[in-house]
């Protein structure tokens, strides 16, 4: 209950607090308070209205201003209304009255409080009990003061709330009372007030913001006031969230982005809510009035529903923005670089795919990692390059660039044998470098070295067999193949275990001769030969009846028809049970232990976590199942009979010692075209010199090399039968450095002369010709080819630049031993060829 006080301190009327800061009263009461004409229609401007809370003793007076104004005597039910807003929140204890939206029933008894000023004045106010008599014109209802009460409703009761005795709710507001005589009075029902408040305010009734005496303060947050405030906050929060998204993902706000419309809608909604909430009448009130829901829904419930719906829309929009692609596409998976051997490339690729599938299954179809599986064991790549590159942390050494020449810097290394890891550590130690290998390596699988036999009727089992017995049993007539000891872990271990089974060096030499003859007879390069590469040839029927020393997993993939190598990626029909395909497990064999190697250079938490997850999976049942699917056995500790690194090195040294020596004549084209520039800098001849230099690194101590240069009209001997080792190498390089390319290309006379040179060693003489152009002498290619065939020499041609092997005369002359290479790889091609030749082929 609020007493409205005039500027002179008199009682102007009564009002009722209906929210935390708002008071309902009659417009004529406010006119009286401001000492204006009681029927003045214009809205009071810059006017303060003093109010008191008479039922709260000790409460200081408060100040209010007009915030809603419907002038008195408008002639309809809306007239004579004013809402005052307190400049401060209502004092403690002043609870807002509860309003009733129902028209008062006839006969209902009510209480009215006021300040009688005519009959029995009472400055402290007096209660009157009255009875609702019913509706009268203008939407008002008649209220008769009871006869048995001390006072009657009179002047001084204007604006007073009509309180239902039963419910305590405010039914109306006294607007007209007689000064004397009859005890009737008229009141405006709250239901009419509610309608009025629901409608948008007439601008002419509104107090311009600039006219307000002061900025109103925030009403207390209780009741329905809290909801609009919450919505305002929500709108502001949504705006802030959108700004944040704009900062993080500006591209989402650009035209053409799929989320653009959603963002635009969310932004519009947020701005609309924030703006609408800034009005004195809330958006919810407006919505309720618009749809006239108040008859069916309680205002508070309506507001809550609308607030909930709005919140959901906003939350959805913001969530869509913050998580824009998850519903549409997978995030970019973590990239892991997995280095492995040529023998394992296909199997690791398959296992990696299984791992990616497993992460995808656990992540809604989106793989969390992508494994780039690759190998550096390729023709033209010196196997020692990998060891050296790993030892120096994949860094350039001024001459070699691992990133450029070998590929990506690995996060995971899956070599066949722990001894390869030892070699890296050993190389790093010898170079005074810190080994990049993480201390802990874990075997993920194993595979023994076995003997695969093609076209054999020998039973696979039935009696104990050692390598010695097996190789002796294999007999001379059968070809024997083995992966390159310089290029693969399988080859190294196989060399070691087979040498260990031989009684002496002579037997080792005979074994190597047998292997060498097998490769030569099939015209298969021994250098760089991988186990899976040999099995690929077997699959093509090239190997014929022969034996292959191989890892058991590779053999399993062969018989199961799985991909073997880059050249054998297709599947074939499984061979299991087909006669003539036998594998023998010698009892004294060694095992590839397939270590999982990590590097200290992988420091990013994201990559290390992904790497560790791969290891964890590989050791789990699904990972082991995937590995078994590739023919691999369970992980193993390094067996007791596993050779040490020094034993392997020793075996390699013996291999190089017992393999047949080579005496090679190298004829290099030094015609004018060799002076042309090439990619990477330098001239063609510079590349050739690098190739020769690398080739000399492959020489054994017993090997010999003769160097010719051909240009102009013929050839010139630069050096004759230089020995392997440092001295011979330096002699060759010194002579080569003196050469200045010039003149034409006397290719055919040079070949004819080279194949005719007598050789002193027992093996067939070898001639290597490197040319970047066709012959310019006009000789007959047919005659040259005849000369080559008539000699015992093995002629190899490396064709680069304008020289070509296919469908040309060089193909006729050199046959399959014509190798084409561009200048990006000719140096490696040459080194590769020399390594093969000095390897005994």
């Amino acid at each position, binding site marked *: 209950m609020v007493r409205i006080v005039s500027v002179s301190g008199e009682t102007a009327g009564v009002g009722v607090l209906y929210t935390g800061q708002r008071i309902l009263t009659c417009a004529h009461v406010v006119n009286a308070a401001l000492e204006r004409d009681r029927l003045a229609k214009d809205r009071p401007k810059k006017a303060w209205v003093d109010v008191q809370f008479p039922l709260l003793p000790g409460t200081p007076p408060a100040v209010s201003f007009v915030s809603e104004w419907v002038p008195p005597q408008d002639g309809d039910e809306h007239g004579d209304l004013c809402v005052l807003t307190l400049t401060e929140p209502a004092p403690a204890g002043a609870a807002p009255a509860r309003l009733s939206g129902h028209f008062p029933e006839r006969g209902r008894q009510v209480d009215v409080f006021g300040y009688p000023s005519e009959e029995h004045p009472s400055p402290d106010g007096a209660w009157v009990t009255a009875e609702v008599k019913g509706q009268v014109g203008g939407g008002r209802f008649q209220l008769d003061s009871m006869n048995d009460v001390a006072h009657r409703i009179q002047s001084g009761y204007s604006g007073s709330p009509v309180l239902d005795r039963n419910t305590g709710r405010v039914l109306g507001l006294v607007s007209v009372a007689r000064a004397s005589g009859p005890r009737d009075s008229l009141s405006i029902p709250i239901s009419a007030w509610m309608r009025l408040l629901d409608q948008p305010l007439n601008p002419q009734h509104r107090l311009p913001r600039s006219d307000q005496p002061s900025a109103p*303060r*925030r009403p207390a947050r209780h009741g329905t006031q809290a909801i609009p*405030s919450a919505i*305002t906050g929500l709108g*502001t929060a949504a*705006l*802030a969230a959108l*700004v944040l998204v704009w*900062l993080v993902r*500006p*591209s989402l706000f*650009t035209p*053409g*982005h799929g989320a653009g419309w959603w963002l635009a809608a969310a932004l519009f909604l947020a701005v609309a809510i924030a703006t609408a909430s800034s009005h004195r009448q809330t958006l919810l009130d407006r919505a309720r009035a618009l749809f006239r829901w108040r008859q069916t829904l309680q205002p508070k419930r309506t507001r809550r529903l609308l607030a909930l719906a709005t919140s959901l829309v906003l939350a959805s929009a913001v969530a869509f923005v913050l998580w824009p*692609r998850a519903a*549409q*596409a*997978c995030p*970019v*998976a973590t*990239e*892991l*670089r997995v280095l492995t051997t040529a023998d394992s490339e296909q199997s690791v690729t398959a296992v990696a*795919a299984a791992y990616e599938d497993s*992460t*995808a299954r656990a992540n809604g*179809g*989106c*793989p969390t990692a992508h494994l*780039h599986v*690759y190998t550096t064991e390729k023709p033209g790549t010196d196997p020692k390059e990998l060891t050296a590159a790993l030892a120096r942390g994949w860094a350039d050494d001024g001459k070699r*660039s691992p*990133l*450029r020449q070998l*590929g*990506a*810097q690995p996060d995971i290394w899956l070599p066949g044998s722990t001894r390869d890891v030892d070699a890296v550590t050993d190389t790093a130690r010898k170079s005074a470098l810190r080994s990049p290998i993480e201390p802990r390596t874990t075997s993920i699988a194993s595979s023994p070295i076995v003997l695969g036999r093609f076209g054999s009727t020998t039973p696979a089992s039935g009696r104990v067999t050692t390598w010695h017995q097996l190789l002796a049993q294999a007999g001379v007539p059968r070809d024997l193949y083995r992966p390159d000891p310089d290029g693969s872990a399988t080859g190294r271990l196989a060399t070691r275990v087979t040498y260990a089974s031989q009684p002496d060096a002579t037997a080792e030499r005979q074994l190597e001769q047998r292997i060498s003859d097998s490769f030569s007879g099939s015209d298969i390069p021994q250098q760089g030969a991988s186990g899976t590469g040999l099995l690929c040839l077997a699959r093509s029927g090239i190997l014929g009846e022969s034996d292959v020393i191989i890892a058991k997993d590779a053999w399993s993939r062969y018989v199961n028809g*799985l*991909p073997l190598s880059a050249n054998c*990626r297709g599947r074939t029909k499984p061979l299991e049970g087909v006669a003539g395909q036998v594998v023998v497990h010698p009892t004294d064999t060694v095992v590839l232990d397939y270590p999982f190697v990590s590097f200290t250079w992988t420091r*990013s938490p*994201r*990559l290390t976590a992904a790497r560790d997850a791969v290891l964890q999976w590989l050791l789990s049942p699904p990972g082991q199942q995937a590995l078994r699917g590739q023919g691999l056995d369970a992980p193993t500790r390094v067996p007791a009979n596993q050779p040490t690194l020094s034993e392997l090195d020793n075996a390699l040294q013996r291999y190089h010692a017992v393999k047949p020596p080579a005496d090679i004549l190298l004829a290099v084209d030094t*015609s004018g*075209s060799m002076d042309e*520039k090439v*990619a*990477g800098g330098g001239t063609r001849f510079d590349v050739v010199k690098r190739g020769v230099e690398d080739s000399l690194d492959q020489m054994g101590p017993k090997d010999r090399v003769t160097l010719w240069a051909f240009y102009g009209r013929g050839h010139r001997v630069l050096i004759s039968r230089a020995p392997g080792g440092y001295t011979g190498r330096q002699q060759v390089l010194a002579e080569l450095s003196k050469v200045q390319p010039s003149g*034409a290309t006397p290719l055919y006379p040079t070949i004819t002369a080279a194949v005719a040179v007598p050789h002193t060693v027992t093996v067939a003489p070898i001639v290597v010709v490197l040319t970047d*152009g*066709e*012959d*310019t002498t006009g000789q007959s*290619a047919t005659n040259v080819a005849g000369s080559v065939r008539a000699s015992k020499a093995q002629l190899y041609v490396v064709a680069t630049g*304008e020289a*070509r092997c296919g*469908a*040309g*005369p060089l193909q006729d002359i050199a046959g399959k031993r014509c190798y084409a290479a561009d200048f*990006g790889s000719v140096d490696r091609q040459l080194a590769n060829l020399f390594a093969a030749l000095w390897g005994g082929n």
Partner: protein
Amino acid sequence: MARVLSVAKERLSGWPGGLVIGVTATLLALSLTPLVRNHDGAAEPGGELVIVSGQDDSNGQVRQKLINEWNSHNPNHPARIVSLSSNADAQHSQMLAMAQAGDRADIYNLDVTWVAEFASASYIKPLTGVNTAGFLKNPLDTGFYEGQRWALPFNTDAGLLFYRTDLVKDLPRYLPPDPNYARQFLRPPLTAAYAGQFADYEGLTVNALEAIWGAGGNVVDKDLRVTIDSAATVKGLRRLADARYPPGGTLRYALGDQEADATKAFTDGQVALMRNWPVQFNRIKPAESGSKSAVDVAGNFEVAKLPTPSVLGGQDLAVAANSPRPQTARQLIEFLTSPASQAKLFADGFAPVRASTYDDPQIRKPRYAATLKAAVEAARARPMTPHYILFSAAFRDIVDDAIADKGDLPPGAVRTLANALKGQRYIRQP
């Protein structure tokens, strides 16, 4: 003071307070944005710029020369190229891992198909405010993803039709050529009519896309919807199948595994036509004087625009997200894509990205310059998706199956491609 704080707290606790705070926060954020995003206007400390790029296979090492030129003018910000393998898979893996690990890089030289991936993962920064005037539209568009510019094209590429002028009178209407057209070349010393790239690598993706486009089909539309099951697309696949495995079991008339193989077949006189990239032009060289044995292909060939749109190739330069010198990196990109740099790149065999470089008579350029420009302008981009690598692998498997099955699509092709475009794991069929 306490009273002031109390009043301030009270006055800022209502909706006006929220609005004031929101507006203030917004303005503050906006004012800080340039610092956060681009460092625009901020003076950057001196130091080296690292460009991560695939190996430069050009004869003259022109990229390094351009870097040397930059270094001579910018001693405080010298640049260094970290050269990666020429193998695209190795390049992609290394760059991606570097970006994810936050390794030092200022600029990535990305294949045009990787821009979306790096942009979507925010491994590169938006290139806002760069001057794009003068660039050819198609190459320029490759650096634009999700309504934002992320990169500028460094060099572009488009396939060309190499043909023997002594054998080919009329160019084919589409590729691979019609069997009836090809038949005229199936005589010695030719072993086939046409050479393309059909090995299982990106070359097959490119050749298959071009065959499909040539038939009026498509694989993925501009909204990344899969359309591979259209009749026109299947028609294109049938042409591929006919070229590799002609009806009746006759010799396939389309040869070539990879680019170099195709060039070799063409240079050796095995085929009359070849689809290949312009970089192969200089690799078809005449035999040395005096030689009587070589087929004189080098003196009897010409290049033309493909009869139907080519796939657009090339590489784009983008600023690494973790670059400590993004503004300088941007300046370096602008230098490398400037008209002067593009002219030098063109002279060394790279297809330039600026129209003026093709048109300027003062610039030394190859004789196929006009043809190349027309080819680039007619070229079409591959799907711009963050999961292009996955998409391409899935597409190739589908193409392989289709070629082996007379052009018919394998079951589930549409779903496989749709999943791959979203990055969902695609299980390669053995």
